[in-house]
């Protein structure tokens, strides 16, 4: 198809699409360093909005909550998702049902899972808070970890496990010295992905965090800030959140493919 394409037209398409994708983000990025904080006029470079941000107790509290949710749900999801992936891949019989249940959390609309969990928790009279957000995030996070680890397992040479046993290693030693080191990059890549998703997740957290102010996560805080009066601090916050996601994703890609695409 390369012989087909008109290079100038292709370049135009790519430029237009990348401009569309990156101009809005770049504007936020630039604005976060604008002294005046308003998009109408550039009044000089400043990091004062970042300073404001770190003095805002609500934002810091929400950020801490998000960190707790993301770290705990990522750890749980990484354990469960990795075991699940290994279990599925060593299995001889794979049913459609099994595939569906593993795939479902990734495609089910967030709002449906969110209200389902809300109904479920309130029906069981569970007091909602950060813990309910954590267990809910594990649902989709484990599915993503599982899919990343499974992709790696598909190219995994199982004979190295037998080779290890043949050379005298017991099963735990084989796990520790062969399986885990070979799988680790994929597991960490999955975990980073889960962490990013959890940090950014809004809808499910919004429904399952309960009413208290103490369990507000960063995306919930951002939603409230956007909705009820935009302050320039949010540009700084958006820039930080975005940068962190991009770093985590780039790391994840690097671990998973042995290098950033294109390098």
């Amino acid at each position, binding site marked *: 198809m390369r012989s087909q394409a008109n290079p100038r037209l292709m370049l135009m398409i790519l430029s237009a699409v990348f401009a569309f994708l990156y101009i809005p983000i770049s504007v936020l990025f630039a604005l976060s360093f604008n002294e005046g904080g308003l998009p109408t006029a550039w009044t000089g470079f400043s990091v004062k909005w970042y300073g404001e941000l770190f003095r805002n107790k609500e934002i810091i509290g929400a950020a801490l909550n998000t960190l707790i949710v993301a770290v705990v749900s990522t750890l749980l999801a990484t354990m469960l998702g990795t075991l699940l992936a290994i279990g599925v891949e060593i299995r001889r019989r794979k049913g459609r049902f099994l595939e569906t249940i593993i795939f479902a959390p990734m495609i089910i609309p967030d709002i449906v899972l969110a209200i389902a969990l809300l109904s479920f928790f309130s029906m069981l009279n569970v007091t909602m808070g950060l813990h309910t957000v954590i267990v809910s995030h594990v649902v989709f996070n484990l599915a993503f970890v599982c899919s990343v680890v499974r992709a790696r397992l598909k190219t995994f*040479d199982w*004979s*190295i496990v*037998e*080779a*290890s*046993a*043949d*050379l*005298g*290693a*017991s099963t735990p*030693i084989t796990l520790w*010295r*062969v399986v885990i*080191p*070979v799988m680790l990059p994929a597991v960490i890549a999955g975990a980073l992905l889960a962490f990013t998703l959890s940090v950014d997740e809004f809808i499910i957290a919004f429904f399952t965090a309960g009413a208290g102010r103490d369990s507000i996560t960063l995306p919930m805080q951002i939603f409230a800030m956007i909705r009820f009066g935009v302050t320039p601090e949010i540009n700084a916050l958006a820039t930080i959140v975005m940068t962190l996601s991009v770093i985590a994703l780039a790391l994840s890609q690097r671990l998973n493919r042995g290098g950033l695409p294109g390098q």
Partner: protein
Amino acid sequence: MTQTMLSLRNIKKHFGAVQAVAGIDLDILENEFFALLGASGSGKTTLLRMLAGFEMPTAGSITLDGRDITHTLPNHRPVNLMFQSYALFPHMTVAQNIAYGLEMEKLPRTEIKSRVADILEVIQLSHLATRKPDQLSGGQRQRVALARALVKRPRLLLLDEPLGALDKKLRGEMQLELKRIQHEFGITFIIVTHDQEEALVMADRIAILQDGALLQCGSPQDIYEHPQSRFAADFIGVMNFFPVRRSGDHLLANDGGRVFADLDDAVANNSDAVAAVRPERLHLDVGKGENSLTGRVSAMAYHGLDLQLHLETPLSPDSVMVRLTADAAEARPLSIGDEITVGWAARDTRVFAA
């Protein structure tokens, strides 16, 4: 007098309803280079995996040095396997790969170090000790896999299609290399292969497997010269076959001509049979009391050491292959379309039941 070190007794293996190995008895001698030869699906790999401990026999027993190891776990057998895919640990260097098995034996560090260095010397890869497997060529990887298994000085080394992934030239070199190493280390080798030439060149003894059963076991010469079945005759080397019928002390071919052979009772009188003769046993001057066969040359191929002819004959729909030595071919120049007569001695005729 060499003695038996490994005995298989009535080994059977079923996978569900599928019978992969159907009752095999085999004795392997000390310091032997033994080949399990068979097509894919013959059960040879399953048999090897049972020796390594990765599959448990459905029935039967495996005894090594008088000890029953039928159900011993792979990590508790003095047996090592060189995997077909080599199964090198991708995250370890060459030296770490080789040291792994010794570390499992909890040997002192200094000993591990010196043994790894020694074996690297043997396989001539000392300069690549710190490379990772994906930085090695196919031949180098193969040698690392061999070293990793050998360094443990197992009683028995199993090799699963060890040369399968190498190109033809390298394969030839490695055949000799493997024989040299086996001799040097004095370890019993069992090799699984589907390549009959490989088995003939390397092995002291060969076992031919078909459909999970042992068809014939013997030295390469024994198997080549005295195949006990049509399958074995066809599988090893090249063989010309033609249909015959026994009539008293000789055989009658399709065209009514007589075929002489050293007949035993394998074929009953007046029953159909198959006569066979190797291409190199056919020669141009027919001696007295020999079999003779006339046909038209339909193709010729020059191979340096010999000249191969295809003859169209009334005996069989398949052309008959003749292999003439370079000298014989020079003495009598031939061209396609020539009609020639070839002969062979009665004792070179093999007869199988039809």
